[in-house]
């Protein structure tokens, strides 16, 4: 097993006019579980197919450890890939499905049998080996197609392209646990493509957020939530997403709608910025303070476990999270306080600093 390194890899389907994946350099470290998160059409599947060799990138080179595989065909890469819907050899039994990749590579018969039985035990397919694969339920079918990848020796990585789309919500949770167990037991590098943030955050050691063919941030789930490096990450992760307010930096002060929200934490050229703060870190009812803004309550959504209070902060809509049964009424004047270290400044959607209290430094 080895790291998978993308060196300046980019792909264009139309000869370079638009990039499905912008040239990027990135390393998938061996043995980790990654979630590749992003909206539909952001290049997730293309990136996956570049790794598995189904697509040869327009530019750049792909390395598996010390071996360059850019032009190595798919069959030579030892990649396991699971697609959005179960891809099975429907006329064949589960056993034959699992044995298929080995038989194609002319493994000896007893070796095939040994490996198939090992994988089937690991995936809990023992009871179904003799059945026709198309008679299984979609969840099991996905497990079988995963098994076809795992049965080979020296699997370089397991790539999963939104594998739970066709699976019942109730079964999804079990399947995700199965995947995590497999990852733990085999130690294969796992790349899991999804557009579902819950799936990504609960599954992965590291989440990679992709937007318009470029990686905008990668990190542990908590890091993406607490410290988004890009406006998109703030919006995409979290429910509801991060609030962003139009503001301005002048003389080191951050103003929103004429009101001083706080101080910028570093020397920032004057000009427009966007102030981003998650609903979880916007608090009502603590009285005036810094960083924060005066606000007027416009409505309250009672979500059961908590309330979402909609306010106009310095004239701009903002959502704050409050405990269930909060006393706020529409029309009330309040002050919304921001947690120190959790309010960020964005310029051209990229983080350029944070908002700190007027008297003191960021914690």
């Amino acid at each position, binding site marked *: 097993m080895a790291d998978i390194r993308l060196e300046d890899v980019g792909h264009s389907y139309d000869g370079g006019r638009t990039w499905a994946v912008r040239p990027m350099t990135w390393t998938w470290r061996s043995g980790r579980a990654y979630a590749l998160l992003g909206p539909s059409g952001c290049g997730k599947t293309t990136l996956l197919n570049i790794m*598995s060799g189904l697509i040869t990138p327009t530019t750049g080179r792909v390395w598996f450890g010390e071996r360059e595989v850019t032009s190595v065909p798919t*069959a030579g890469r030892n990649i396991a890939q699971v697609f959005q819907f179960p891809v099975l050899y429907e*006329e064949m039994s589960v056993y034959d499905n699992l044995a298929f*990749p080995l038989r194609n590579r002319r493994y000896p018969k007893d070796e095939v049998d040994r490996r198939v039985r090992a994988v089937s035990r690991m995936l809990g397919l023992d009871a179904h080996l003799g059945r026709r694969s198309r008679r299984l339920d979609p969840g099991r079918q996905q497990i079988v197609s995963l098994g076809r990848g795992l049965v080979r020796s020296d699997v370089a990585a397991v790539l999963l392209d939104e594998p739970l789309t066709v699976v019942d919500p109730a079964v999804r949770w079990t399947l995700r646990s199965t995947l995590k167990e497999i990852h733990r037991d085999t130690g294969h590098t796992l790349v899991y493509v999804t557009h579902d943030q819950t799936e990504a955050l609960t599954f992965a050691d590291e989440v990679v957020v992709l937007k318009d063919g470029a990686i905008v941030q990668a990190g542990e789930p908590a890091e993406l939530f607490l410290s988004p490096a890009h406006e998109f990450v703030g919006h995409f992760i979290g429910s509801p997403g991060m609030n962003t307010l139009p503001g301005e930096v002048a003389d080191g002060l951050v103003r929103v709608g004429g009101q001083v929200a706080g101080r910028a934490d570093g020397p920032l050229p004057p000009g427009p910025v966007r102030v981003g703060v998650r609903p979880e870190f916007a608090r009502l009812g603590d009285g005036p303070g810094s960083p924060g803004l005066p606000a007027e309550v416009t409505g309250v959504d009672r979500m059961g476990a908590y309330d979402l209070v909609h306010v106009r902060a310095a004239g701009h809509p903002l959502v704050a999270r409050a405990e269930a049964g909060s006393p706020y009424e529409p029309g009330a004047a309040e002050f919304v306080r921001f947690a120190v270290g959790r309010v960020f400044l964005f310029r051209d959607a990229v983080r350029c600093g944070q908002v700190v209290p007027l008297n003191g430094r960021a914690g």
Partner: protein
Amino acid sequence: MTLTEPVKDPVAAGADEPDRRPDAKPKDNRAWLLVLPVVVCVTFTALVPLMTVVNYSVQDIFSPSDRIFVGLEWFRSVTRDPEVRGAFLRTLLFSAQVLLIEIPLGVAIAVAMPRRGWTVSAALVVVALPLLIPWNVVGTIWQIFARGDIGLGGWAVNQVPGVDFNYTLDSADAWITVLVMDVWHWTPLVALLAYAALRSIPEPYFQAAQIDGASAWATFRRIQLPRLRGVLTIAILLRFMDSFMIYTEPFVVTGGGPGNATSFLSILLSKIAVGQFDLGPAGAFSLLYFLIVQIVSYVFFTVLTRSGR
């Protein structure tokens, strides 16, 4: 019982009160009137003609007023007639050859056809062209094309040293000409059906096969062929029925000759019915012919659909 009285399901009626569910539809026997147009149409297009044939097949008719009921005598004589038996075996052999050539060839063409780009339209037009030509024109084209003196095809074959190709004199040449003509005319149908089925296979199946290291043959055998089962069932049935009933093309090209080398069942039948006006034997012949097509089609269909389970 009037016509409008609701029909009671005997089981339900015996069990308890009538169905009172809100979505239960009222039953009305007048609905039968709605199928009346179809019944009338089918009666005049199929039922009456068929019964006329049955009528002929059990009588010996000398004139409209002079007829004798002969029972199954015509059936007996037709099944014992060596000419009919010869034509039957000939037709069966022809159908078997047509299926053995056209099905694999059509599938091969479909697999080889491009999947994307402008070449798709070009290939479709070229492949579909023979299907757009009327039967008797196909016959005429091949009648000329295969001639050794002025036909391009026949002439070209005769340029090969040692070959003396003449379909009007040599029965093997005539047979080959008719067979090649049918392959040229109808393989495109198989190819188009198969192509449509192949196009419906999602791309990930081929990607998975690549990842699994499957050879081109394994990909065909394990992914494409299973998906072709449905259309190939239809293709085999259509091609069997059509080739078993082939008439126009051999009639135009060879007229059933030389001798009776290409005298298929349909050609013999029309000779008996229209040429000799032997309505009794022709009626019996038609019914047997009809029955054979039905039975063989049924057997094909049952075997092909059963083997898929």
